[in-house]
């Protein structure tokens, strides 16, 4: 390179690159648009033959019988039920883990446990589903004397395990970013460590913890393999945790292979995709909104 790195050419080069980078930088937005576009393209034709109310509230999903029926209500209820139960299990575990890591654990223990949690996050969902199928299901069947161990509860337990890393690590970040001065103030007033955690640290980090929970729940709703393998697969409304169910995601995965291209069934599965897309997007937007609120670091 010659003396002037600021030669005319490199400046022009720099400008062109910056335009190009902007173009590629928009790619995520473009992909998001494209996903939406193609979901609509393949999903909306369903509503030419099936009313939107019949789709959302219809209680029978019989895509192959005559007449075909595309009521997704049992699938929606299954998704909500499994997600709710999984959250009830995952939230206490994850928040405890986060409080333990940020407030109680010895620094050495923390340095070991944090990567272990990231490892949980990396385990492929098909492996977790497989474990639920071959280990938890037979055990449940025997212990509770059920017809099958593949049910809502089993799926909820395995999903809760998957949600723990998300909820715990984001909550831990939120708890760790609570300023020390707040805690010191509490100690100075004579509060012990638990009282400080309960009345000062956790409330101060609460919006961060909520963000974590919402992101975790969003992950649970969208998870496919675990519910496909473990939830039991019956497209009926589950009334108890021991009933089999077929959540939205599992239904897409189970039926896509047998739905001919362009058929009503095919469109119906994409319509479920639209539902999932907006459901998870809603959760993510809410989470993003909440996380904007808890920035202690700047103050």
């Amino acid at each position, binding site marked *: 390179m010659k003396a002037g790195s600021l030669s005319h050419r490199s400046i022009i080069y720099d400008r062109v690159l910056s335009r190009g980078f902007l173009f590629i930088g928009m790619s*995520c937005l473009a992909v998001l648009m494209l996903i939406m576009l193609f979901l609509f393209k393949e999903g909306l034709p369903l509503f030419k033959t099936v009313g939107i109310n019949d789709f959302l509230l219809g209680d029978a999903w019989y895509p192959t019988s005559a007449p075909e029926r595309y009521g997704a209500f049992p699938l929606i209820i299954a998704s909500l039920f499994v997600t709710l139960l999984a959250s009830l299990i995952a939230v206490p575990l994850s928040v405890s883990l986060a409080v333990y890591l940020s407030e109680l654990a010895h620094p050495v223990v923390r340095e070991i446990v944090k990567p272990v949690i990231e490892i949980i996050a990396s385990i*492929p969902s098909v492996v977790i589903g497989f474990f639920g199928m071959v280990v938890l299901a037979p055990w449940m069947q025997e212990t509770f004397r059920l017809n099958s161990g593949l049910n809502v509860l089993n799926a909820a337990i395995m999903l809760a395990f998957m949600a723990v890393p998300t909820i715990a690590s984001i909550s831990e970040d939120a708890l760790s970013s609570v300023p020390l001065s707040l805690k010191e103030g509490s100690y100075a007033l004579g509060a012990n460590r638990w009282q400080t955690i309960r009345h000062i640290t956790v409330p101060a980090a609460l919006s961060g913890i909520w963000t974590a929970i919402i992101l975790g729940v969003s992950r649970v709703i969208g998870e496919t393999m675990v519910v496909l393998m473990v939830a039991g697969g019956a497209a009926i409304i589950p009334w108890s945790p021991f009933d089999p169910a077929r959540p939205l995601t599992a239904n897409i995965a189970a039926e896509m292979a047998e739905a001919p291209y362009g058929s009503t069934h095919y469109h119906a599965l994409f319509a479920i995709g639209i539902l999932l897309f907006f459901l998870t997007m809603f959760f993510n937007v809410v989470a993003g909104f909440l996380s904007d609120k808890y920035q202690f670091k700047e103050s």
Partner: protein
Amino acid sequence: MKPAANLVERAMFILLRVLSYAVIVFLVVMLAYIFKKGFSSLSWEFFTEPPRSEMTQGGIFPAIAGTFYLMVGASVLSIPVGVVTAIYLTEYAQSPGLVKLIRLGVNNLAGVPSVVFGLFGLSFFVTFLDFGTSIAAGSFTLGLLNLPVIIRATEEALLTVPGTYREASLSLGATRWQTIYRIVLPSALPGILTGVMLSLGRAAGETAPIMFTAATFYSPDLPGSLLSEVMALPYHIYVMATAGTHIQATRPLQYGTAIVLIMLVLVLNMAGLVMRYRFKKRMRGA
């Protein structure tokens, strides 16, 4: 009052510990169980041979190879686009509104369920672009899924590079791009590689996005081109465990395949975590 408060504190701390360790115990039990059950099926033949006798014999070589192809294919798309997006966000972007918008896009893309990526891959790559069920369609689908992983890791790495590095370079007369290419990127490389490792692990382990776009139940031969379907480890586990006529007979092979997949993903992730740890340590020192 004091003793009672301390008793509550004691009890709560014990509870927190128990709940925390429950999660880790569950992980250990799960991994130990799968390894114990599947260890006996690991053999040289298991790694190098295709399945035989309706999956009950032989190995999983085509599935290992297929997963490898999909990982590479996904990276070809996700690494360049992801890294450039992160460079734009941290080094070039000037309007905060635009940065916010792009970041919103990244976060929402990260939240899209993997099965929805599968649907998109099916309608866009398989049908619209007419790739058919193929390595290309599956790789691109996985690549898009991985974009947020790469972008976030790269962004984090770039932000960790001290501003003084950039200022020093710019003050010597380098352009922005020269600064990025010669100073910032080399310093951030370990952090970027962390993202690459994590995304490779994810591409290897995802099932739902490849179910309708790339994966096939059985093919004894290696794929001939980018437009052939492939076997893949996660799909292989799923199919052997849920379909077919010999679910019980193939059980040991299912455990064996699960071990291979777990090891692959764990090694990639641990390599990523170690790199990030060392990178952060070095940058703090700088």
